[in-house]
């Protein structure tokens, strides 16, 4: 069934596990628009999706919402608890409110958009996911980030990009402090182009000027243990 109907799911009536299993059993080609009401801060809403579905959640969710997502578009009309879109592989997750800590943790692919602020450790250990935050991020964001892009349209907290590998970070506002081995790097045309593309995908390009962003990345001094670097650990 691929139509324009919006299917409603009420978590006050349907048990969460039943809802998630129903999504899992729909088949990997299934399309359609589902609207989930009364999430009431529950954990693990819409985790493990693997189909080009659109799942729209009306309200605040708890931990790990849209975790391990593949293909699906998950829209959250509210705030998220810890670890939204953690370990996402592909697809798109949009948080209309704020996200708690570790948003997009360990994500391999796909796009996470936070329209409000994200708390500490946003993009921790990201492995290829793209994360665009319209507001600010908390301390230790992109900690040990290996690949992917983190775009922060507001400010970043302390120890941004600590022990960073090859992820790229763009920040428009102020950075309270850079973590070990994270340095500012020049913005070249290719970076402005990739940033424009990411802001476009996040629906933020009309509100942002890519020339107002700075780029941060790894100085690559901590890749291998060197006793001279011991103080940096």
């Amino acid at each position, binding site marked *: 069934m691929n139509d324009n109907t919006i299917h409603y799911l009420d978590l006050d009536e349907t048990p969460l596990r039943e809802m998630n299993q129903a999504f899992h059993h729909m088949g990997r080609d299934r399309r359609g628009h589902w609207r989930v009401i009364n999430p009431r801060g529950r954990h693990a809403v819409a985790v493990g999706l693997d189909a080009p579905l659109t799942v729209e959640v009306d309200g605040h969710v708890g*931990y790990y919402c849209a975790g391990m997502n593949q293909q699906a578009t998950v829209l959250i009309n509210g705030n998220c*608890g810890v670890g939204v879109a953690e370990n996402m592989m592909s697809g798109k997750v949009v948080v209309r*409110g704020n996200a708690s800590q570790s948003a997009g943790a360990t994500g391999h692919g796909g796009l996470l958009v936070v329209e409000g602020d994200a708390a500490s450790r946003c993009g921790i250990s990201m492995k290829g996911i793209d994360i665009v935050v319209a507001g600010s991020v908390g301390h230790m964001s992109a900690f040990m980030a290996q690949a992917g892009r983190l775009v922060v349209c507001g400010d970043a907290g302390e120890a941004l990009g600590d022990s960073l590998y090859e992820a790229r970070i763009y920040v428009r506002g102020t950075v309270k402090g850079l973590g070990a081995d994270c340095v500012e790097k020049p913005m070249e045309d290719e970076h402005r182009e990739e940033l424009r593309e990411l802001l476009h995908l996040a629906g933020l390009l009309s509100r942002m000027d890519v020339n107002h962003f700075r780029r941060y990345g790894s100085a690559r001094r901590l890749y291998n243990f060197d006793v001279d670097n011991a103080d940096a650990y």
Partner: protein
Amino acid sequence: MCGIVGLYLKDPTLQPQLGSLLGAMLLEMSERGPDSAGFAVYRDPVDGGTVKLTLFHPDRHYPWRTLTARLGDDLDTPVDGEMRATHLVMQVAARPEQVRHWLDAHHPEVKIMGMGEVIEIYKEKGSPEQVARRFELAKIAGSHALGHTRMATESAVTTEHSHPFSTGLDLCLVHNGSLSNHNRLRRWLTKRGIRFQTDNDSEVAAGYLTHRLREGATLKEALDAALRDLDGFYTFAVGTRDGFAVLRDPIACKPAVMAETDAWVAMASEYRALDSLPGVEKARLWEPEPATVYAWGR
């Protein structure tokens, strides 16, 4: 893991519902802390010159009437007591230290859970649901309250190890996290006259605040000092006579979310504990910043 909830009512017409509102919040935090639970309620202030104490003895048939009668005779003052499961809330027209010394001398088997003019502290082993029912939390009115659901990680599961811990007159502490320097701090505080009932790490945090406050620090100063001296993970909520305060450690691994409307201010480990509060859909919601003291009060 543990769960914390706190609720401060700005709108006095909600006061009769304090216990039922807090109870729903506490119940929602059951998975975070299934082994014991407790709460502190601020209500029914006593007159000046009178002290209110919450006492505990594990025996449900403990002869509280004998104790209060003897205390009244010895101090030559009227003593009122109200039993609630294994706890007794007692009002005595005497100085707090007088009553404490009398209890130490005559009834060392009785534990003082809390003391002040407004505070009452109830805590027990068991699921949050059982604990709330045993103490009839839903029927308790008041201006503000804190609650805790415990999943023990550092020490035994007993009523004495449960939260909230008293940190002085009308003050109490609930803690989610674990402290790593509590043994050294406990020795340091013991030398300075702070007494501990258990080997619990959170009790050390409570004792630490008690010590700083006795030295004359304000609550804000005591919490700022705690950031320096306590090593470990914590989200604290501190109940005060007029409100409550919240502090997270500088790493902020332990969760906390806050909400405010015109009618109330609330905090909880997770949003789902706030979802049952009236008007929450219009509340301002935010996550407290690390190493920042938040305080509310009249």
